């Protein structure tokens, strides 16, 4: 499969701006929203149980020179193993349960944006010990650090999107 770039799956055909859709219509099925709520909750539960919402615990894993905490290895290991097994089963199906097609990233080229972006993310993660999931989920208890981190994250992501669109305005892209 030839790919123009990473996650530039043509998920929806280019169209004029769609009319705003109400939840429960074909354009925004309620079942997808409810599934998102449910699955997101399981994810948030997992993050908290695993201790990933504690930046000091994450930094204790990243800090090889300190009192090392290897728990993240178990978290990632368990998550990856279960996902790998589950994906093999699920991706054999013709289509997902609630949507008409799978939308999985199609590229396999390791390019500069991937590596540079990952490096920038790594710097940010290594400074404060937050990656997007735990930072957002910690808003549940009004974590004061998240009140600074999460808006900054959104601004950083928004800025990148603007720059990317200016560089290549015609490409249809995912986040």
């Amino acid at each position, binding site marked *: 499969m030839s790919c123009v770039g990473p996650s530039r799956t043509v998920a929806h055909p280019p169209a004029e701006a769609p009319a705003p859709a109400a939840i429960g219509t074909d354009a925004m099925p309620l079942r997808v929203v409810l599934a998102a709520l449910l699955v*997101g909750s399981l994810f948030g539960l997992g993050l908290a149980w695993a201790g990933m919402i504690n930046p000091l615990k994450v930094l204790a894993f990243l800090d090889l020179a300190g009192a090392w905490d*290897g728990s993240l290895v178990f978290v990632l290991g368990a998550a990856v193993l279960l996902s790998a097994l*589950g994906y093999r089963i699920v991706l054999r199906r013709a289509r997902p349960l609630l949507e008409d097609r799978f939308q999985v990233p199609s590229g396999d080229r390791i390019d500069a944006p991937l590596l540079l972006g990952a490096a920038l993310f790594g710097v940010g993660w290594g400074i404060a010990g937050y990656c997007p999931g735990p930072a957002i989920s910690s808003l549940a208890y009004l974590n004061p650090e998240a009140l600074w981190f999460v808006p900054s994250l959104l601004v950083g992501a928004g800025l990148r999107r603007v720059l990317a669109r200016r560089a290549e305005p015609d490409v249809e892209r995912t986040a």
Partner: protein
Amino acid sequence: MSALTPGSALGGGLLIGLSAVLWMGFAGRIAGISGMAAGLWPPATTAERAWRCAFLAGLIAGTGIWVFVWGPAPAARPSFPTWLLVLSGLLVGFGTSMSHGCTSGHGVCGIARLSRRSFAATGTFLGVAMLTTYLVRHVLRWA
């Protein structure tokens, strides 16, 4: 390794993995949190924002439930510099958008799919993060 918590780490990891599988099974998508957050920005249709908001709301609710039922919430760090929080947030947001993924999107889902890109991304952000933590904590001593 005195702080190791293998039981809860495994349990939490299994729940995260389960979430990834369920999301693929239901919606046919990677459970990538950075993509969901970034996807809230324009241009996004109401439908595209709706499920992303719902997932992130669920994320918050799930952590909230755990804290309320089991808890406690992690003790707040003694005055971590605000400017470092803002800088790290900007870098995480920008970097995950550029690389199209984070620890969930690349580290869990991408590796589970045996994606070359995700292996490369994950190796990079893990290595760079460890180097950064070392620099910040032991060399620069900013935090």
